[in-house]
């Protein structure tokens, strides 16, 4: 049985063997890329998985310095934290609220480049995408402007706050902020003064849902019982037994 350490050692020897022709391949216990089953799976599943740093998997990076938003201004980011907290009913200084707000800022910062990449697909690759998804989702990827949706939404919140209360959104009480959010909640954008607000709400709610329910706290709250170790296959426990 190969241990993980042995696997790593095999990676090292792979560099030597990759050249081929007269190398004595039979001398290696198993060639690179061939491995025996690990029997450490219980510990592995329970302890979580350590990853080698040289792979292609993009892991969350631990920051050495204070967070700097990549898309929003510092003030806008504070408002995003506030809104995320309201969406989740959590105090704004909760770790998961910051975690989600930072991810939303990250995705917004890359939104323009994603749209450009979608528009830059070759005609052939675009045709495969349309055949796969149908035309509408492809068009949405090419045209949806997440950055504008966010900027317009944040501006709308401030303008509406000033109109109603004479002050910026950030300065409102939590209750007044919640009221304002409720006035645009779950409404389809329609022609009218609050389209920027309603459009923003739908976008933000979607982001918060995807952020929260992929967090440790969110998955725990759902009681998600997958990605785990089971000794026998899960099936119906109560209906028919």
């Amino acid at each position, binding site marked *: 049985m190969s241990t993980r350490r042995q696997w790593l050692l095999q990676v090292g020897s792979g560099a030597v063997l990759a050249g081929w022709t007269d190398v004595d391949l039979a001398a290696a216990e198993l060639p690179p890329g061939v491995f025996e089953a690990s029997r450490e799976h219980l510990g*592995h599943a329970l302890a979580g998985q350590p990853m080698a740093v040289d792979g292609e998997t993009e892991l969350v990076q631990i920051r050495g310095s204070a967070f700097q938003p990549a898309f929003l201004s510092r003030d806008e980011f504070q408002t995003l934290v506030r809104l995320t907290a309201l969406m989740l009913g959590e105090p704004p200084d909760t770790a998961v609220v910051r975690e989600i707000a930072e991810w939303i800022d990250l995705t917004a910062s890359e939104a323009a480049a994603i749209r450009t990449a979608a528009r830059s697909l070759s005609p052939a690759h675009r045709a495969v995408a349309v055949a796969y998804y149908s035309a509408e989702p492809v068009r949405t990827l090419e045209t949806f402007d997440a950055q504008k949706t966010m900027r317009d939404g944040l501006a709308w919140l401030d303008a509406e706050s000033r109109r109603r209360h004479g002050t910026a959104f950030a300065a409102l009480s939590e209750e007044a902020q919640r009221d304002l959010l409720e006035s645009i909640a779950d409404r389809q954008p329609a022609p009218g003064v609050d389209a920027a607000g309603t459009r923003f709400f739908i976008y933000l709610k979607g982001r918060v849902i995807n952020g929260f329910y992929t967090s440790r706290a969110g998955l725990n709250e*759902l*009681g*998600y*019982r997958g990605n785990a170790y089971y000794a026998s296959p899960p099936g119906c426990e109560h209906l028919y037994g």
Partner: protein
Amino acid sequence: MAGKIYDVIVVGSGASGGWVAKELTEKGVEVLMLEAGPPRVPTRDFTEHIWPYQLKYRGFGNQKKLLETQPVQRLCYACDDYSHQFFVDDREHPYTFPKDKPFMWIRGRQVGGKTICWARVSYRYSDFEFKAASLDGYGQDWPISYKELEPYYDRVETYIGVSGSYEGLPQLPDSKFLPPMRLSCGELVAKEIVEKKFGWKLIVDRSANLTVPLNGRPACHYCDQCQRGCFTASYFNSPSVTLPAAARTGRFHLVSDAVVSHVVMNGDGKAAGVGYIDRNSKAAREVRGKIIVLAASTLESTRILLNSRSPRFPNGVGNSHGVLGHYLMDHTTLEDGGGTMAALKSAFREPVGRPCGYIIPKYVNTVGPYRNKNFLRGYYFAGDGRQELYGQAFQTPGFGREWREKVRSEIPYAFSVYAQGECLPRYDNYVKLDAEKKDAWGIPALHIHASHGENELAMAKAMGEHLGEIMDALKLEDRRLPRTELNVFGKNIHECGTARMGKDPKTSVLNAFNQVHDVKNVFVTDAACFVTQGCSEPTLTIMAISARAADYIADEYRQGNL
């Protein structure tokens, strides 16, 4: 071309190549395997137990990078934040198709090929497939029968492990099963209704996951993340099942990063070896072998044959009669049907992790009263029943604590169903070498010309009607109607045909033992050899045929016939 002459060169290290290598080396034959991709390293490349919050993009993927580097591969459900490394960079692997015939070609180049991230569904074919032409008059029979392949199914299954239930269905013969997994609550409800209303069985999938330990591999631990690689090798994949067996013989040599471009021919009309390009240095190399086995995947094996042009074989090896490249198939699917089962709405969260779904086997035009003269052949239904994880959050109005509590405690029970049907082998679904486009190693790219024919479209209509009847019978709510159009060609990653087997060299490329009619020491053992594909997943049959071909090669080699 100098250097050692190997007994057998096997091109490709996936389901087919792994079985050929295992069987041949265990019978005393020395094998050199060439794999176009790199070796994978579990600790670096497998992401089995990674959580979304450990990923920079939380499981949603680096969309910019995916669009730029894997514009086709990203469309595969498994090419995601966790597993994109198992799929090719489309910029290096171009192919072309006519403007109005898009083709989705999903490719995994690495030691193990697509077996690292495959969906593990394992069904035997029956004589409804092998002898389909005799039954309905369309096309050709396979040159082999179920009886001839049965011992090889047995051999493969008892070694790799396939879980499932014994049902005694003629159209879906039982395997040598490990204990079955279990149906979910929703599937048990559906089973009763479907069996009563239609007379169709609804059974748990037959899957190459171990429900008990086998040959030193631990049983599945049901984390349900199979496409990310498996540290415990609890599902079949060649790098930790067949290839170690070959390596243990001491007669197995593996060279990865070797992109094979063509078969090298001798003056006497036999193959002398293969030419390949080093994936990294791009240097051209040749290796010598007495026998060449192509197991590079359906379209890659055919591409290598087409590109093996010489004065004696100007159109490629195995193409004397213009059959090579033709009769491409991929299953057709009508997808996305489903809804919720109101009676199973619950506040109690159930365990999840079963790495498969359910299947309602093929009955239409096969067994029983469901006959439809509008088309030939048939289809099966599949899907799964499970609690929604958090999809309901998008539909739950409001926000804040109360909203979260509703999302947590009002868990909808989702039931999905889709149909998968047979694609008829047609001469006008074909691949050829593109006249201009080349891949990153200078090898001519494929031009793929494939579309659904009248039979597939007529079948799709019937599939849609049956899906509606099933959803009605189950009284599904919040209904999601299945798509009205078939999937894009290639999407099901079950491409088969293009170098089919047959008795007549004028209408087939390979004989009944996967041997090229024209060149006796060249074999093709992957799904390129398929004559028909039924409506079932091809991998188990690929493995059984590969084991059978390896038996034949070993015998013929020993007798000096090759």
